[in-house]
């Protein structure tokens, strides 16, 4: 029987004066994870971007539930994307995408 993979969905808010491109944001997240936990740690995160809204500065990421503390520690460490200073905050974490969207709309 296949093992059920437990995942976590993370909504993050990007504070920046400039609009950040989807791939630049993802590159910054990966770079932060790699710097803090190395390639072995990064491989355990199973990180994927689910949704990205550059206008609202909101992104939804998915990761393995075991890697959640790693992702939550890596995200605040991002201080720049390209040349522009940014602050990225974890808004909400949920076990399902449906629950996350519900919490965000509250």
């Amino acid at each position: 029987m296949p093992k059920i993979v437990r995942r976590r969905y993370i909504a993050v808010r990007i504070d920046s004066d400039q609009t950040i491109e989807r791939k630049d944001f993802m590159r910054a997240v990966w770079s932060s994870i790699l710097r803090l936990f190395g390639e072995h740690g990064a491989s355990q995160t199973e990180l994927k971007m689910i949704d990205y809204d550059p206008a609202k500065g909101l992104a939804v990421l998915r990761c393995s539930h075991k890697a959640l503390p790693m992702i939550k520690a890596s995200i605040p460490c991002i201080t720049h994307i390209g040349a522009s200073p940014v602050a990225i905050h974890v808004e909400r974490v949920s076990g399902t995408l449906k629950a996350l969207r519900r919490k965000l709309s509250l």
Partner: protein
Amino acid sequence: MKGFIDLHLRPNLEERAEIRRIIERSAELGYKAAGVSLPQEKLQEGVREIRKICSDVGIDFISRIDLEPRNSAELLRSLRFLRRRVEVIAVKCLSKSVARQAAKDRRVDILSFSPIDLRRRFFDSAEAELASRTQVSLEFDMAPLLYLHGNQRINLLWKMRIETIIAKKFDVPIVLSSGVSEAWLLRKPEDYASLGYLFGLDFENAKKAISENPKRIVERNRMKLSPNYVAPGIYVVRRGKDCPK
């Protein structure tokens, strides 16, 4: 006082707009109180000015001074002069003798150490034992974890991990503060609590380090600074007309 407290903001006091920006950002991110580090020579003036900004923004202001004494005698002199004037006294320990003196003095609230020069981080078991008797807290500034990279951050995390283990063993309260001088480096309290994972502080204890631990320091000192305080354990509860005949 409820909620999250950032005990260490270090804005450039010459730039009024920057002070306001940092305090407004703190309020936006969910802090209920902010401690602003003030220089000794501009204490009264700074307190008045920043208290006004904080009341405009709707955040509780905590006056704080960071002492950097060269020796124990200088530390004792400063404590004697300042203890009744500010709510929080932090000592940046630049030598072992100062660190030991600060840890055993009840008038000190917070011990802080250099994030760059790791040879000057004197928080070992002996220091922790002294601090646990006086309930002096150990402060970790989070800003260096954001702006340092490579070897410097690796070494800082390694040192912080050891200090966390020692602090837990000797029951020394840990305080997590931002330590920022620019608004864009500020993060939400929950984000700082998540950073605790990097140096072995679990999420619940990290949250306490940004809420309950600083709150205890501030409430204790406000009680001592109130006119009703007489001596440890002795307070005036009624005076004048309030006294029963």
